[in-house]
């Protein structure tokens, strides 16, 4: 019985495999995310998508060579209890990856949150709009070039009078 990583290695060109404190991680090319996750779901038994998130490596001391934003897909097999973290990287000028909502419904809101906070587009997402911040908000606040105290949005909120409302 081949391990998940070995099966992945046979079928796809992995950019990197690593392990830290018992957690297995693989880095895959951005375009291949959907195929890899589909393979993992359908052939390796990873039936639950625990989390989708992103890390902005703009000011990180050891920047990964593949891009500024590192997406994190946190997978779990409810049968075997095995966990796997799949990473994909993209840059600010090509900030888009294929959406995995067709595979897991759980990705719907998680991808919307990543779009909201990091401005990464998920191609093929059924309803990609902001989830936590208002629709007319312009920035993506979890990017590292966004200041902690904001860019003055809170101090310049439009005032709606009773007559207008």
């Amino acid at each position, binding site marked *: 019985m081949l391990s998940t990583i070995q099966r992945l290695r046979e079928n796809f060109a992995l950019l990197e495999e690593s392990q830290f404190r018992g957690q297995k*991680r693989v880095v895959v090319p951005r375009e291949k995310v959907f195929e890899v996750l589909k393979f993992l779901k359908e052939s390796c038994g990873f039936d639950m998508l625990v989390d989708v998130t992103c890390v902005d490596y703009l000011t990180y001391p050891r920047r990964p060579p593949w891009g500024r934003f590192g997406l994190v897909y946190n997978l779990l097999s409810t049968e075997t209890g095995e966990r796997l973290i799949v990473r994909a990287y993209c840059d600010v000028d090509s900030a888009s990856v294929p959406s995995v909502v067709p595979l897991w419904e759980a990705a719907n809101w998680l991808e919307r949150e990543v779009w909201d906070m990091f401005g990464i587009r998920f191609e093929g997402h059924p309803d990609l709009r902001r989830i936590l911040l208002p629709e007319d908000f312009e920035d993506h606040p979890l990017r590292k070039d966004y200041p902690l105290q904001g860019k003055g949005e809170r101090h310049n909120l439009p005032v709606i009078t009773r007559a207008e409302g």
Partner: protein
Amino acid sequence: MPLYRADFAGNLAHDEPQEYLWTMNFGPQHPATHTTLRLVLKLEGERVVDAMPDIGYLHSGFEKLGEHLNYNQYVVVTDRMNYCSCVANNVAWHLAVEKLLGIEVPPRCQYLRVIVAELARIADHLVCNAAVGLDAGAFTFFMYAFNPREQIYEILEALCGARFTNSYTRVGGLMYDASPKAIELIREFVRKFPRALDDMERLLNRNRIFVDRTKGIGVLTKEEAINRGVTGPIARASGVTRDLRKDEPYLAYRDFDFDICCATGGDCYARYLVRMAEMRESLKIIHQAVENLPSGPVSVDVGLRVTLPEKPQVFGTIEGLIQHFEVIMWNRGFRTPLEEVYSAIEAPNGELGFYIVGDGSDRAYRARCRPPSFIHFALFPHLIRGHRLSDVVAVLGSLNIIAAELDR
């Protein structure tokens, strides 16, 4: 805020005119939402055709704050995530930090953390079930549930001085050791709580009105639960036999004898029953933990440079003073590896995980929280479609949505 089409693959698009339907706004300031969230319901008479959740009213940038506060300061912010079970968040956060640093806490600390996490689970389940009862018209049950919850807060107060937002854990240990008074209060709670639980079960388990209001409402199948990433009591009520305390034992959960409570119904009533049964199991764990509480320190050795030495050492010895400065000075602090970890615990609501990126300093480079409420609230339109307006509150209550955790 403009409303576009539904955020799930429904047959009905919101921008199409549907003259026989009418739209009802529910929240964000409605007593039955319990927290600040909003639903836009499409109704056909009293039947809910579609629901569109609108969240973000309590968004306060916790993850951004996590990048600017150090690992011990951020625990105060985790309190504010799921405020019905604050200590469970504290434990989850510091377990993740300790996993990043590669530290294992001493046995006494592990046992005390298990005790507080299980107390938090009982408090959370009490609030959740009380709210379901209250929304379904069972006000007496609410009073029965809030009485033992008060005792739990007294225990937490005796442990760490705070009743509600505890911030009890620290990197590599706890804020204080448990006093004999606190241990005595926990023993008393273990003695008294089963009777309160019996009363509560007698009051509601076979109550005709309550069963009619919750049975068959908001059914979630096992496949749907897995596909939608549902964890915790909601998944277990749908037949997913998964509990991180058993499957990936953290802290001292290996030492205790307890069962995982599951149901197959998947409806609001099954979720209520699972939560009631889990409280008994939590009580079993607390009982075993408090009777077998190991002696010894509650924090890791000061040589690891993550915990502060005792005050008499700091004031009395030069080594203690140096160790104190090694921890608190901004350019000394503790060193984290340039690595990333994901660590999750079985919080009362489900899998509460933290994804931490360490950048060498004592602040996280990224502090992602995987909030169970966020995943569970995405279920809501799926669960409510086809039910009546009065079922909205039953389903909402049984999902136990805590908006502060939902929006962070």
